[in-house]
């Protein structure tokens, strides 16, 4: 009798979990106020703006648009979902390997800094406020560094957040951070920035759908100008951002 009740309770719990996937934590974790310091990184935009490659809303959109299919947004979406699946399966080894790969794929020193510093800050803040049962087993298998999308994937999987909303909010936050950097550098105004973000909704939705089942072989970019911009940023004379 007791066993039956327990099983019923477990089944009910699982069913509820499936029926009402959580999304609320996403709006905390991926908000600009979550203490990962995202405001300090421009992903090389500061250099592209310095050279005039980005000078207004149109050229800013033209710079970021290709990232969905051939640049950082594409890879981050794939890594996020690969990480989510290995974390969800409790596969600490696969998760650690993915993390190593994500860090090894960084094209420059500052882009490595951008992902590893935000990853470490996310891990620290989320571990304190949003722990979950399997967290210690993942913490013990990680090296000293964690890539940002993997840190987010770990907590999303741990809290049963579905992949599609996770990826959409993650990508929108990434775009939001890029646009906000451009805003600080006086390239776009407030309304233009918001219009740009709203305009990416379809692309974000499509990339998230693609990334949900994507395998490791789906990784791949050719955003060489953006990679070079992040390298050039290292020696930029006057700068606001760390990347």
């Amino acid at each position, binding site marked *: 009798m007791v066993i039956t009740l327990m099983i019923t309770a477990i089944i009910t719990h699982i069913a509820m979990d499936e029926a009402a996937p959580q999304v609320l934590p996403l709006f905390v974790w991926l908000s600009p106020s979550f203490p990962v310091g995202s405001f300090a990184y421009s992903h090389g935009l500061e250099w592209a703006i310095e050279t005039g490659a980005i000078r207004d809303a149109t050229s800013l959109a033209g710079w970021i648009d*290709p990232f969905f299919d051939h640049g950082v947004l594409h890879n981050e979406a794939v890594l996020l979902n690969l990480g989510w699946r290995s974390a969800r399966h409790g596969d600490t080894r696969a998760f650690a390997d993915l993390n190593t790969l994500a860090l*090894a794929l960084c094209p420059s020193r500052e882009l490595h*800094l951008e992902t590893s510093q935000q990853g470490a800050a996310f891990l620290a803040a989320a571990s304190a406020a949003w722990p979950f049962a399997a967290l210690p087993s993942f913490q013990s298998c990680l090296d000293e560094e964690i890539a940002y999308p993997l840190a987010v994937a770990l907590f999303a999987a741990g809290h049963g957040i579905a992949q599609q909303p996770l990826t959409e909010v993650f990508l929108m936050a990434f775009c939001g951070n890029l646009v906000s950097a451009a805003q600080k550098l006086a390239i776009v105004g407030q309304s233009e920035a918001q219009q740009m973000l709203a305009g990416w909704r379809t692309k974000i939705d499509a990339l998230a759908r693609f990334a949900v089942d994507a395998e490791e072989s789906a990784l791949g970019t050719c955003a*060489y100008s953006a*990679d070079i*911009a992040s*390298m050039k940023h290292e020696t930029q004379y006057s700068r606001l951002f760390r990347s």
Partner: protein
Amino acid sequence: MEVPLLDRARGDIRLRYENYGGVTRPLHLFETGGLRMRHPRAQQGCVGVMVNSAGCILGGDHLSLAIEAGEKAEVAVTTLAAEKIHRTLEAPALLDLSFTLAERSTLSFLPQETIFFDASGLTRRLNVAMAEDAALLLVDMIVLGRLASGEDAITCRWSDSWRVHRGGRLIFAEESRMNGAVRGYFDQPSLGGGSRAIALLLAVAPDAEGRLDALRDRLEPFKSVCAYGVSAWNGMLVARFLATSPDILRKVLTVGIGLWREDAARLWQ
């Protein structure tokens, strides 16, 4: 009745370099198919020159090169000519590169450029396993189209999957993908920005990061003709290049390689 697949080329080189009392020599050379390794008298140490006797790479070809550098061996490997990737209706050609670097060995892989013809396809896999104190220098250049013949708006399929492990740990990975009309998307400003020649220089060695400023100084005179960036972290030095002209990029790379090798200007002649 079995219908045989179109007979495509297979080429395979496996060899090991050893240091014999301060002189590096090739050993255990295995060659098959259209690939050969030659060792002409070199200016600086041991230099292997890979020859693809087919003169080109076609869809469905499968070529592989596996090199081991023994303890304290010092070797550079280049190619006799640019590698030309021909038009194909078949699967992309496959090129497998595998390098193993023992303690205190040096391996420089400095092939001439790879030229994609219109409607060509190439998949490359590179795997490096190196000791903590070994030194790797890798310079790779891609050209999109036979530019001299006016072929500057090609379609191609290119996929690179590179992994570099140092002391058993993955430290560098590169996943490059290009699939489609170059003019359609690669010309976008944050991707290729109108360039037709792309290069990557990767140095992994105990002294690699310390060469950051020296490489930047060397490249400085070319900043108006070639877009490039140089960066160093985690014991690596990485430089990326984009140029509209392959000839200029070859020159820039030669100057860059000169930081490591006095014979840089002679390597690609």
